[in-house]
């Protein structure tokens, strides 16, 4: 019964008892149990990603009116494993003149930077790697490590296109890091803690109801951070050959590929943690095993939205991408931060329903004002729409009647 209620704590305690029974010092027990936990978590994350790749391909195919993978196994469910085997057996080509260490370190950094975020994610009330007191900052800082991976890839592969794409990717990541950090401050402000599990514990009301606009900005910013459509300028095939990973092949390319999908999953997890109440739901505190179900449901909702956006939106131009960030997202998130801080301070002692209503009203007003400003900007910059003039058309009846076509 204890096992069913909270399998994680049960197994962890048994494992630690076992290690202590072997006569190990307590610090070694701690070390080994953390190492084992990290290994299991990382492996399951990687396995999850192989499934996610299949799900994503299937959903995108459905949106585009195709079948998607449907050959390997029922509904093509083993397609990712087939791809995996192919990628494992491929030759890994090292380009001439490449810088050996940066070239080989880059894919490792790309995967590990994303995977390390999982150390601070709370999966249930008891199941988390560590409830780090600076968890939010940790998530932002690991973005910097990912950037380093991209620079190393661009530099190490001795290719102009790779370097250009890396510069472009870094410009995008650094720019979008600003609104990302600002919007992540708002859940911290509401909960009074930077530890992710404490933020979840403080969410009696999901923060998306207290700050819907901020959640939207956070979502858009994260789309840019993971380089998904409509912000997939990093791999704009028409401009850069294939992005900073042109020169990578075989397993090394596979690592970048896995890192991208893992990053998308990770930001969905972070979004669910910060704005959708994480593992919270009816009975999740008494029965921690339920928490993981709620968390999975919320995360898959966010992930589904990301896939849907990827399948339906075209890519921005690079100047548009920068303009959206510097002229819209950063001023908006800064003013929302100040406004939310002020209003939340005023209604701090009120019951939940009043807080939600007041903050929703504030967000509505901000949205209305934003809409007015954007409409005026749009009017000022409006150009003649590029619509084709009516042209003479060759029609069947005009040919048959032998009249000259105008």
């Amino acid at each position, binding site marked *: 019964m204890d096992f069913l209620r909270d399998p994680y704590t049960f197994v962890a305690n048994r494992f630690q008892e076992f290690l202590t029974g072997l006569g190990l010092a307590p610090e070694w027990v701690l070390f080994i149990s953390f190492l084992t936990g990290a290994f299991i978590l990382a492996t399951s994350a990687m396995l999850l990603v192989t499934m996610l790749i299949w799900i994503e391909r299937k959903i995108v195919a459905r949106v585009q009116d195709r079948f998607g993978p449907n050959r390997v196994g029922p509904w093509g469910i083993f397609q990712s494993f087939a791809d995996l085997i192919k990628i494992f057996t491929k030759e890994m080509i090292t380009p001439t003149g490449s810088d050996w260490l*940066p070239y080989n370190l880059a894919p490792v950094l790309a995967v590990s930077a994303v995977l390390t975020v999982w150390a601070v994610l709370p999966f249930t009330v008891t199941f988390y790697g560590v409830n780090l007191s*600076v968890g939010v900052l940790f998530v932002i800082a690991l973005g910097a490590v990912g950037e*380093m991976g991209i620079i190393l890839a661009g530099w190490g592969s001795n290719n102009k296109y790779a370097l250009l794409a890396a510069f472009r990717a870094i410009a995008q990541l650094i720019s979008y890091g600003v609104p990302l950090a600002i919007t992540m401050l708002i859940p911290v402000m509401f909960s009074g803690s930077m530890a992710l599990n404490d933020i979840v514990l403080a969410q009696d009301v999901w923060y998306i109801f207290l700050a819907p606009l901020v959640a939207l900005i956070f979502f858009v910013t994260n789309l840019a951070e993971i380089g998904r459509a409509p912000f997939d300028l990093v791999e704009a095939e028409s401009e850069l050959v294939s992005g900073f990973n042109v020169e990578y092949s075989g397993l090394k390319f596979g690592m970048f590929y896995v890192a991208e999908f893992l990053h998308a999953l990770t930001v969905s997890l972070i979004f669910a943690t910060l704005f959708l109440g994480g593992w919270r739901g009816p009975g999740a505190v008494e029965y921690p095993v339920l928490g993981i179900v709620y968390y999975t449901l919320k995360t898959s909702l966010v992930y589904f939205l990301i896939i849907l956006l990827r399948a339906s939106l075209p890519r921005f131009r690079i100047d548009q991408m920068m303009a959206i960030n510097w002229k819209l997202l950063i001023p908006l998130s800064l003013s929302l931060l100040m406004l939310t801080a002020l209003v939340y301070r005023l209604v701090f002692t009120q019951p939940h329903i009043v807080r939600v209503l007041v903050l929703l009203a504030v967000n509505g007003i901000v949205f209305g004002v934003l809409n007015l400003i954007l409409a005026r900007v749009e009017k000022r910059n409006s150009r003649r729409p590029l619509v084709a003039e009516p042209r003479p058309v060759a029609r069947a009846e005009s040919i048959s009647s032998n009249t000259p076509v105008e």
Partner: protein
Amino acid sequence: MTPLQIVFLLVAAITLFSAVMVVSIRGMMHAALFLVLTLMGVAFMFATLGSRFFAIIQILVYIGSIAILIIFAVMLTRNIMDAEVASLNRGWWFFAPLALLIFASIVLVLSSWSAFATLRDLSSTSGENILEFGKALTDPNGFVIPFEVASVLLVAAMVGAVYIAMERRGGRG
């Protein structure tokens, strides 16, 4: 030897080695990459000192901003300092023993100090209290003046950097 001590010695060796590489390697790009490694090692030391906040800030500020800025600057000014030109000036054979001498004398002075081998106080391993730190930074009786001076410094540096590095049109300057 506890596991922490073994890991610390390893990281310290890597940090010092890469610091030496930063100042002695020929290609500036490689020096910048070794600088990143050194900064990582320093971040690890902050973490073992019980300051999680500054360990993360080290990664965020140094690796996320300063190191990337340096790498960009190296790439923008590349191909001038090519590999044939010596990367160190003529005085290096004089400064290298001098540096070793300074290091030896620091160690000597420290080792004659009675508190040199102090063991760590276990009460501080839980990490710093960020809440208290944040309050102190905005408390008029605390550190509000250093905090404000630092923010003014940052704004001034930002404006100055933009002004200096801006490409002026119209041939002026």
